[in-house]
């Protein structure tokens, strides 16, 4: 039920998939909030983004569950925030 637990769960899921051993992964052993568990069960990329899943993990998770980059970009578009700050390189 912490930010860490959610990340550990997703990370272990990804690693199990990458090793072809998803049979050894058991989501019930992780201390997830109902929202985190729902995101996992529903493979809800948008929910994971809102819950603060790290971008590197989100990218790998999307690959594992079959979302292309274009597909997950579209899913995440509602969360795009207009940026009014400017970097020193911006003319």
């Amino acid at each position: 039920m912490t930010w860490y637990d959610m990340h550990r769960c997703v990370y272990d899921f990804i690693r199990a998939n990458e090793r072809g051993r998803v049979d050894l992964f058991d989501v019930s052993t992780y201390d997830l909030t109902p929202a985190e568990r729902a995101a996992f069960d529903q493979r809800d990329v948008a929910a994971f983004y809102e819950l603060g899943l790290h971008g590197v993990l989100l990218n790998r998770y999307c690959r594992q569950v079959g979302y292309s980059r274009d597909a997950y970009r579209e899913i995440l578009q509602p969360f795009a925030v207009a940026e009014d700050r400017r970097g020193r390189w911006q003319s």
Partner: protein
Amino acid sequence: MAELVLAACSSHAPMMASARESAPVEQRDRFFGALAHLRAELAERRVTTTVILANEHFTNFFLESFPQVCIGVGERNMGPAEPWLGIEQGWVEGNPALGEHLTASLLGEGLDPAFSHRLDMDHGIMTVYQELDPQHRTRLVPIVQNCAVPPLMPLARSWDLGVALRHAIDSFPGDERVALIGAGGLSHWVGHPRVGDIDEEFDRWFLARLAAGETESLLDMTDDEIVLAGNGAHEIRSWVAVAAAAAPTPATVLAYEPVSSWITGMGVVEFA
């Protein structure tokens, strides 16, 4: 004493190996042409060991313990971690003596690198190493940097890391001929609504600073500013470290291509 005979940087992206053909042929030719130039330099300068700095993408470390810098000191390391990358997986010979010397020397200069006797090398290192040394003739010392999980090493500290690496290479006994390579960046976003965007203005500005030797103007950039060019832009830390190791020699920009299909601004520079 050992000698730093080549210092260079290249962007990395998994797709430069796994989906090479997805880039337009002109962009591909220019980017890989620049890497071919470095490959020829590596051979011509008789490099014996390649040291590559690249981001740690949760391949070796997770949130239980996350070093800012970890030096591979093992006799061998495994790569690439990703079986789908299109590069044959296998052991790559390390250089334990140099790796341990780098670690000890950095400790002596007030930096505190972690070390590992067995690193898994992902696309961050292997895509670039494979281009520069496809036969793996040079021994490889991998250095993974935290460019992804806050709090991150400030850019000024990355500069200090590069200076210390140069001192360490220069003080290594023997006749090792070393290439120091930064791999990562430039602008890109991952796991983000802007995945696929490239900030070409940032990339060209950053490369121009390196080419002009105006690195001072980079070092006070905060993470809040860098991230405007994407969460993947934090990987410029590897470039800053190599620029420091090569200083005062400025960079020569060999290529820059904003490759949409690889979701990354792809640059290649040589410090010469």
